[in-house]
């Protein structure tokens, strides 16, 4: 009883321990865990999710009513397909506005092209190839930009090019005399920076790292010898992570390509090109490390978990954090042109914190519209054999499978998180290939060509 009161007293003195989340947050809980508030806001703001328009000029046939879960069976037959489906869909979420539009797409393409451009995403399906071509031509110049890729590869810790404060911190630790418990809790990046710097000093060189396999082996042995007890896990971790010393920190090729892509686009009203250009200039004149004239991006904010004590990790995080905020200031204040002062703080932060995860691509393989239309095209031709057998069959499971794939791509594009189809290839192949996903639901596989 006494104990629990202590805890309660302790907890009431905290900043408002905001209780259970509101109903809206609870409703979207399982997806917020994937893309957080920033992604959810993008979905809401985007007219497509706060609002969608279904364009279809045809009437519901018996076949449609048997095939579409959001039509009301026989009751819908003969009525407008757009209106009937919107009624069914609207029921799903009263926070979303749905509008039925019964115009013909051909008519819209010939006389009201600009209306199509007001949408964030246009998904065309089972449309005639001529229509797809017209849509593609109309919606072509858009570029998709991805800010948070949720990459599963580790961020660079910049061990080979340690920033001065980290280097100074690593060299200041009295390894042989410090408390043995503290010694066993030095975070591994600090150990690596220290070992590499000592290695360089012995060779009287300011840069470089072990390169031959003998040198690398000897370097690992050196880390092992720094242990003062046999079971210091942080040193074992450092040994396992020693590759970071000889993996040069460079600007990833995707980001290099973004730099080229945006080098001449300073007139763009959008904030993203300005941020990319600022990053590019930062990389060319990194003031924090004058000995390296180019090739470094601002530090990322994430540190992987590592064996350490709370204090030691805090000390390291502090060193990283102070440096990070300086990097962010340098990148944004120093290089973002004055006219782009409209760049929102939060977006700026998102871009800078995630920059190794930024991917961008040009032209059609990253076209939301293109991808979606071509995905849908694949639905029609889902396999040569099947289409010969059932030339006009739109099987519910195939439709649901492709609908799911298209929806996943649309979500990735609108939230600007995760990587849409063929994003990786798109940047390197320029205006080469399309991102077309082919699906075979006989043997059940997918492929991207």
């Amino acid at each position, binding site marked *: 009883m006494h104990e629990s009161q202590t*805890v309660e007293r302790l907890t009431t003195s905290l900043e408002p321990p905001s209780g259970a989340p509101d109903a809206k947050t609870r*409703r979207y809980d*399982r997806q917020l865990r994937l893309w957080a508030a920033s992604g959810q806001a993008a979905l809401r703001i985007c007219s497509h999710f706060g609002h969608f328009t279904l364009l279809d000029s045809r009437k519901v046939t018996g076949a449609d009513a048997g095939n579409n879960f959001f039509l009301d069976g026989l009751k819908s037959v003969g009525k407008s397909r757009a209106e009937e489906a919107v009624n069914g869909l609207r029921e799903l979420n009263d926070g979303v506005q749905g509008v039925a539009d019964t115009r013909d797409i051909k008519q819209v393409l010939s006389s009201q092209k600009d209306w199509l451009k007001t949408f964030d995403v246009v998904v065309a399906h089972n449309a005639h190839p001529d229509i797809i071509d017209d849509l593609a031509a109309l919606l072509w110049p858009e570029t998709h930009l991805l800010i948070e890729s949720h990459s599963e590869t580790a961020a660079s810790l910049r061990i080979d090019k340690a920033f001065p404060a980290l280097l100074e911190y690593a060299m200041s630790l009295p390894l042989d005399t410090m408390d043995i418990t503290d010694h066993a809790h030095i975070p591994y990046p600090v150990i690596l920076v220290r070992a590499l710097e000592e290695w360089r000093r012995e060779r009287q060189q300011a840069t470089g790292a072990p390169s031959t396999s003998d040198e690398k082996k000897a370097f690992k042995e050196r880390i092992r010898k720094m242990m003062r007890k046999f079971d210091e896990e942080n040193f074992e971790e450092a040994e396992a992570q020693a590759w970071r010393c000889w993996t040069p920190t460079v600007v990833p090729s995707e980001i290099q390509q973004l730099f080229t892509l945006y080098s001449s686009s300073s007139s763009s009203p959008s904030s993203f090109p300005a941020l990319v250009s600022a990053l590019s200039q930062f990389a060319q004149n990194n003031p924090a490390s004058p000995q390296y004239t180019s090739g470094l991006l601002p530090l990322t904010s994430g540190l992987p978990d590592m064996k350490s004590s709370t204090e030691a990790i805090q000390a390291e995080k502090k060193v990283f954090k102070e440096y990070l905020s300086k990097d962010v200031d340098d990148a944004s204040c120093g290089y973002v042109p004055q006219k782009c002062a409209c760049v929102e703080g939060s977006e700026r932060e998102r871009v800078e914190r995630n920059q190794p995860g930024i991917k961008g691509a040009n032209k059609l393989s990253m076209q939301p519209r293109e991808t979606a239309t071509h995905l849908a095209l694949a639905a029609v031709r889902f396999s040569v054999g099947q289409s010969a057998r059932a030339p006009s069959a739109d099987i519910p499971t195939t439709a649901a499978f492709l609908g799911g794939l298209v929806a996943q791509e649309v979500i990735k594009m609108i939230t600007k998180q995760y990587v849409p189809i063929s994003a990786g290839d798109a940047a390197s192949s320029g205006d080469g290939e399309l991102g077309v996903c082919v699906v075979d639901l006989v043997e059940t596989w997918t492929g991207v060509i």
Partner: protein
Amino acid sequence: MASSEDTHDWEGRYYHIDQILDTPGPRTDEAFLAGDGVKNFLRKEAKILVIGAGGLGCEILANLALTGFKDIHVIDMDTIDISNLNRQFLFRPKDVGKSKAIVAAEFIMNRVPGVKVSPYFGKIQDKDDAYYLQFNLVICGLDSVEARRWMNATLVNLVDPENPESLKPLIDGGTEGFKGQARVILPTITSCYECSLDMLNKPTAFPICTIANTPRLPEHCIEWASVLEWPRVHGDKKMDTDNPDDISWLYSVAAARAKEFKIEGVTWSLTQGVVKNIIPAIASTNAIIAASCCNEAFKIATSSAAYLNNYFMLIGTEGIYSYTFEHEKRDDCPVCGGEALELSISPDTTLEELIEMLTERQDIQIKNPSLSTSTKQLYLRAPPQLEEATRPNLQKKLPELLGPSGGELNVTAGTLPFSATVIIKFTT
């Protein structure tokens, strides 16, 4: 034409599906009875069971109904929560608190005329073999590993080599965020769910000393609150992870701990996520995986096309990547393998340590096992008298119980309907 006598059907209702059912394709099995034969079977005879009426279950039920299955059964023990509404599209805010199985069944029957959906609001374990024997196939859309293992083992046990009807194909779907998998299991013929247990991600377990002494992550603080502080403060009172007050308590204790250690990132939502082990879920991934499961069900039920052999894995986080492969049957699978599992261990191992090993090994994961040899009981969980009588064995070393050269052990698996034979050999 075949179904024109069904009062619910209208002209053109099955226009799309019938194109597949009227003509064989280039990869169609010879047994395919194009035309009325297959349509009658699908729409009048086939009986299909869906386990789970959640994210996958809702999509599965809708797909099956549209595809033409008319006798569908669904089991789910859960009630509807507000966090289901972002993707479980058969439920509305007014349904919160009601049975998922019942609400889903009613919705489907209203929307797709002529389809009968029979719900059961309860556990799969409540039903016996006779119940499961009535179905042609079973589709699982579950988020629980234990429920899948139970269903898998039950269907494997059901197979009687004398009776081909006793083999019930099992189609299993699962999703997590943008990733998912669908697989076809032919019990005793292809690899089963238990065969692939080692493909599951190992749950992250934080060492207790880290939680107690050197927290570095927000998760460490939350574990401290739930694993150490909750029992210390609340004694025997069980934590209810569905109760927002309990989560709030954990959150404030974890937040205080985090503040003390200057750790950032403890939030209410993270607290709930860690203690409930919440898996992120979105509608689009469920749509893909459910469609894939139902597509397999349709192909198997109608023999209209070849079916998946036997594992489809989708990774949608970077582009659309999928991998289709044949997962191989394990000869020493405790459920379908038939061969005993061999373990080489040190003769210093105690029975208790062996039990811990059986619990933790990725390819076994048998929780709360009871162990016996052909001649004696080594450790039994129940009844209490036997538990007490066999408890002293836990501290004994294995050679003392099995003899100096080891031997065969029978392991029964707590709540799962199977037992494994394990051969213990001693390393020297």
